């Protein structure tokens, strides 16, 4: 009986570790621009092929949230020399938080660019992402 309980516990532990190994959102990426603007980029789940959601939190150097931006998001695969097939969609959630819907069609390293507004002079983040 004790034997069975030990086996069941081991099985549960094994399953739990197997489930946690490749799923769940990765650690958020925090980046800073020269003027102190901070961006926190947090995927909702592990980045994979197809649709993905990434929450972006933007604050000024004095930690106040940056609101009302029309974010321009794009991504490129520098190792292969190509970009996305569909333009990402960004929407504002409030209090400096934004949601980006982005579709990846290939696994590997992507560089996501997030410009804080339109025009070539808009400051922008370059966020490395690993799609698996």
């Amino acid at each position: 009986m004790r034997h069975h309980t030990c086996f069941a516990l081991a099985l549960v532990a094994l399953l739990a570790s197997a489930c946690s190994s490749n799923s769940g959102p990765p650690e958020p990426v925090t980046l800073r621009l020269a003027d102190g603007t901070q961006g926190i980029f947090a995927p909702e789940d592990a980045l994979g092929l197809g649709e993905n959601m990434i929450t972006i939190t933007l604050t000024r150097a004095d930690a106040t949230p940056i609101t009302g931006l029309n974010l321009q998001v794009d991504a490129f695969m520098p190792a292969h020399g190509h970009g996305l097939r569909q333009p990402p969609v960004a929407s504002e959630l409030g209090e400096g938080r934004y949601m980006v819907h982005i579709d990846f069609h290939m696994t590997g390293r992507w560089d996501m660019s997030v410009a804080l507004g339109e025009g070539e002079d808009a400051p922008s983040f370059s966020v490395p992402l690993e799609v698996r």
Partner: protein
Amino acid sequence: MLRHAITLTCYLLVAAACACCLEPSGASAQACCVGGGGQLGVVGRERRAALTARLGYQRAMGSYANDGSYHGLRGASIDDLTLELGGGVRLFDHRLELSGTLPTRLQHRSYRGSQGSARVGLGDASLGVGLMLIRGSVDGVRRREPGTWIPFLDLNLGVLVPSGRAPENSHDQNGADVMGGGHFTLQGGLRLSQFVSLRQILTLSVLFERGLARDVHSLAGASHRYRPGAAVSLRASWLYARDMRWSGGLFVTTRLGRPAHQDRERVAGSASRSFSFGALLSWVFILPIWEATLSMSVDPFFSGPGRNLPQVGPRLSLLMKRSF
């Protein structure tokens, strides 16, 4: 008996040439950008010309990340069907071979959260020149006869033509219409074939590839000068002829890709590495002109052997060849 041995040798030579061209460039130049790796040449050494049709199927089962870790495909299905027509002719006492291939591809892509799509189109064509540098012995290696140790040595030069749709010209939301690499690729290689016996050939080949630079752009319009990394492929194969009709063999291939360059800067972590192994079975069903070859190969599905490969999985192909 002697005549039988000579004829068998001829078929072994034909089959060996076949084994080397079973995975033409089109097979791996899929929607991703890790193209090439194929071997050049179509015509058996003792034949004047040949026409080929190869039907290939590849299914992606996973991918290799930059750190060499293998990841099974999640929420996606990626399937490629290729029909590749090829032809070649031998000139100047069979020493010079001119060949070419043209693939047509049917690709299906389906990812989580989006509708699947399937597209048909031309893949990247290839043109090649082969030169037999050394005409080796076909007698099989005998220890005390140095003449039997002379291998066949072939030099192959080729070019991949970007006739398939490039990644930056894709209109399909899943990229199912990306049929080629988008750039010219220059190829050069050597192939060493040794008759270890009257029935067995060992072949070693090496192929260098250099993709030419081009301008690419992202969806938002950002433009870059992109040059794919150079690559070297190594392939070893063993072939055994049971009789004049049946032969079979095993092969392993590895391809090492150097880093790509973007705007003249090396792209960090973009070097790639692949490894695959497979087997083939060849049947001459109308002596001596019609031949069918079934080939299967697979990439490993565990961490370590590969690196930076967006799509790996099993490949199956059937090659029909009419020799003249």
